[in-house]
């Protein structure tokens, strides 16, 4: 890669990060505002099944004692001023400091997300290239059909189906958790327990990526440059590897970057089915319990993922395709 291209990626990164700070502020503010407009009452979440016994007056006292009576804007200010000093607040949904919830769960979600994306990208490359280079052929038809069907099946069903087939029937993999029940966490057992959720998470992203890559490749195949290369008599293999794939990879990277946050959404479902102790579950729980501090940090992390995903995609595009100007 040339020095100027590297410099361009650097400038791009700095610009995006500068843009990310106000974005985080706005998004977190919006998260607090939207959450406060939701029909859920954080006091009901706190009281759980025993909330029925209180008078309205007693509920007000409880609200005050628990600090649930402040407006969403002051709750946000409280949260953001604490977060700047490294204090992320206390999670009502988990009865733990938010920092502890993150420490216990973020790593597992990251591991699952990373493994899932590797699965997704590898499979999507294999299938998308196979289908794209022989568009209209038998393999293309089969792959496209499978992708469309898979895309239409909810990830939840895919996950349960995978459990039934691979865990319950074939007994290849464990059904849930980080380890076998009661056992300590080791690298080997975590890896064994990771396989199935990572496969399901990855596979659930494959249709978009594979179909996107197929489109990009067929597009590139029809371009003037490729037709020109064929006309110059270059061997097919060289045309494919030297022209078609680099041209198709830029939109593919953009697609991957754009789909990254989907991994978090998909992780929510996959984590639930496989009892994988990550942040996906925590996202739903914190939203239902109006657990502002946890909800805010999860939202901010998601924003971070979106920004980072797009940045990585654009940087990769600049790196592989000299014609791209990126942010310009």
């Amino acid at each position, binding site marked *: 890669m040339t020095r100027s291209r590297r410099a361009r990626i650097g400038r791009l990164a700095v610009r995006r990060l500068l843009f990310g700070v106000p974005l985080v502020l706005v998004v977190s503010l919006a998260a607090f505002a939207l959450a406060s407009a939701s*029909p859920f009452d954080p006091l009901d979440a706190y009281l759980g099944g025993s909330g029925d016994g*209180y008078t309205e007056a007693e509920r007000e006292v409880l609200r005050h*004692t628990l600090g649930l009576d402040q407006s969403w804007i002051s709750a946000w200010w409280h949260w953001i001023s604490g977060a700047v000093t490294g204090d992320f607040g206390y999670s009502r949904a988990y009865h733990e400091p938010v920092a502890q919830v993150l420490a216990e769960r973020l790593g597992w979600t990251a591991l699952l997300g990373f493994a899932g994306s590797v699965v997704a990208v590898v499979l999507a490359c294999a299938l998308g290239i196979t289908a794209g280079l022989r568009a209209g052929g038998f393999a293309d038809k089969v792959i496209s059909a499978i992708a469309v069907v898979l895309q239409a099946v909810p990830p939840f069903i895919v996950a349960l189906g995978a459990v039934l087939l691979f865990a319950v029937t074939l007994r290849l993999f*464990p*059904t849930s958790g980080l380890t076998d029940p009661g056992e300590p966490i080791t690298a080997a057992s975590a890896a064994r327990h990771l396989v199935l959720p990572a496969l399901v998470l990855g596979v659930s992203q494959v249709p978009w990526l594979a179909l996107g890559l197929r489109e990009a490749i067929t597009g590139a195949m029809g371009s003037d440059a490729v037709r020109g290369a064929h006309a110059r008599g270059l061997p097919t293999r060289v045309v494919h590897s030297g022209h078609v794939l680099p041209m198709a990879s830029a939109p593919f990277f953009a697609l991957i970057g754009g789909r990254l946050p989907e991994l978090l959404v998909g992780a929510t479902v996959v984590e639930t089915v496989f*009892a994988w102790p990550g942040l996906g579950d925590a996202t739903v729980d914190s939203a239902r319990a109006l657990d502002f501090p946890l909800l805010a940090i999860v939202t901010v992390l998601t924003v971070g993922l979106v920004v980072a995903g797009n940045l990585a995609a654009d940087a990769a595009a600049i790196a592989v395709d000299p014609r791209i100007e990126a942010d310009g």
Partner: protein
Amino acid sequence: MLFHRRPSRLLVTSLVTFSAAALVGCGAPGASGGAPDRFVVIDAEELGRFNPLTGHGGNGESKIYESLYRVAEGQDDRIPDAVPVLAEGAPEPVDGDLGHWRVKTRKGVTFSDGTPFGPEDVAATYNAVVDPKFASPIAANFDFLRTAQVAGPDTVDFLLNGAYGDVPHRLFLAIAPSESLAAPGPADKLPLGDHPVGTGPYALTELRPDQVVLTARDGYWGTKPQVKTFVVRRTDDEKARAAQLAGSADGTRLSPALARAVAKDGYRTVVSKANDWLGVTLPSGNPVAGDAAVRLALNLGVDRGAMVRDILQGEGTPVSTLVTPLFGDAYDPAQDFTFDADRARKVLDDAGWRVGADGIRQRDGRRAQFDVAYYPTETLRRDLTMATVSDAKKIGVEMKPVAVEKSTMTPQYLAGTAFLLGGGGQPYTVDTQLYPKFHSRYAAKGVGSKWDNASDYVNPEVDKALEAARVERDPAKRAKLYRDFQAAYHAAPGMLALVSENHVYVLRDNGWQFGATALEPHSHGVAWGPWYSLARWTRK
């Protein structure tokens, strides 16, 4: 770079990668049934809420904590006895005063951190639960209690807010060490939640986001349990729980139909009777729902038996007055409503509700029509609402189902709108079931919670029976007073009680022998069912 290879080679490479990954995973999956003294269950609740002040172990079901009394198992055909655990014998009223009770505490008991247990721990725990500074979510269950105090060595006194006859059944709170409650603050921030210290047969040895491990405790004052390790995992979704059961767990709770589908090949179901009822409020503030004839006709016109059979899959009982056979001599079967649509129609005819052209009745220009609100997210409530709506239509009453969120349920809304209500959180006294639900004291605005007497029902005969029963110590006389209540209620019902559901558990049949289950309140989970008596399980 990936893209400089030939596509076919890429495909092969990725397939090889996957086969390798599959081989790594090829070890034996967790055969939890293999460890003979370990039992693994999947709960639907969040793991690690071990704080008595947030409701953990509130009926003696905790494995870590113990209470003065717990619910006896094997007595699910009536209100179970209160079995002394940390108490020696039954509580006694001091000088016959039903507002002042004395309990002797057990000697020679230590907490899992080695500190001795005594009456000061009992007093500290009960006082914390009613202290607003702790903001305990279960404080409302203890509104009868003014304060608890140490009254001598191994003696604790309970001073109540008035005379109260049925005291042992209100003393099920799990007891924490007084030291852990020294600094008042919101209950959910107490260290006890993650670092429980109790006198019970198990101690927490691991708390992870995905599993909790409880281990039988050395130094426990009672018999050491034979199940040495109790592992609890968590999965919210019941279909996922059913799938995981076959792989790595020994038991969980499922809905009746799913439980029956899963209970084969070495698994079986255990059904626990529960007092977990559902019914429709008929508020006095609504001119149709609050009409005496409409209330009576609906009670006669709904087919509760069909609801139990079709909606609960047989796992439940019809409920007419909130008093059920569980309440023993206090229950009068003659006061239950039997399904009689013809009589229902006659009641409405006699009251002047005439059938209109569209089959819906009218009186003085008013249609026999009102809304019934329900939570659409809870399938059981939804199904019962629809069944009620359908039955009501057959006798000429149009109930319009309205799906609502919890926040819609303001006291004002409930005062005019019928609602599918659930209850039974504190099922272990007849008084807690009936008094707040039917006494006219709770019909007044701002008294009690919005769910108390949500129909704003006023019936002086009902009031009289409930008040007299609350302070009556003679069980036979008290039972008679509750039968009087039922007769008065039957003549002029205040709501439309429907059914009570049982709880269904599935577990692996792996050689453990356990006794009967305990009668369960609304709360359920892996602390209940066959696991209520976990510490007393034996090997076949």
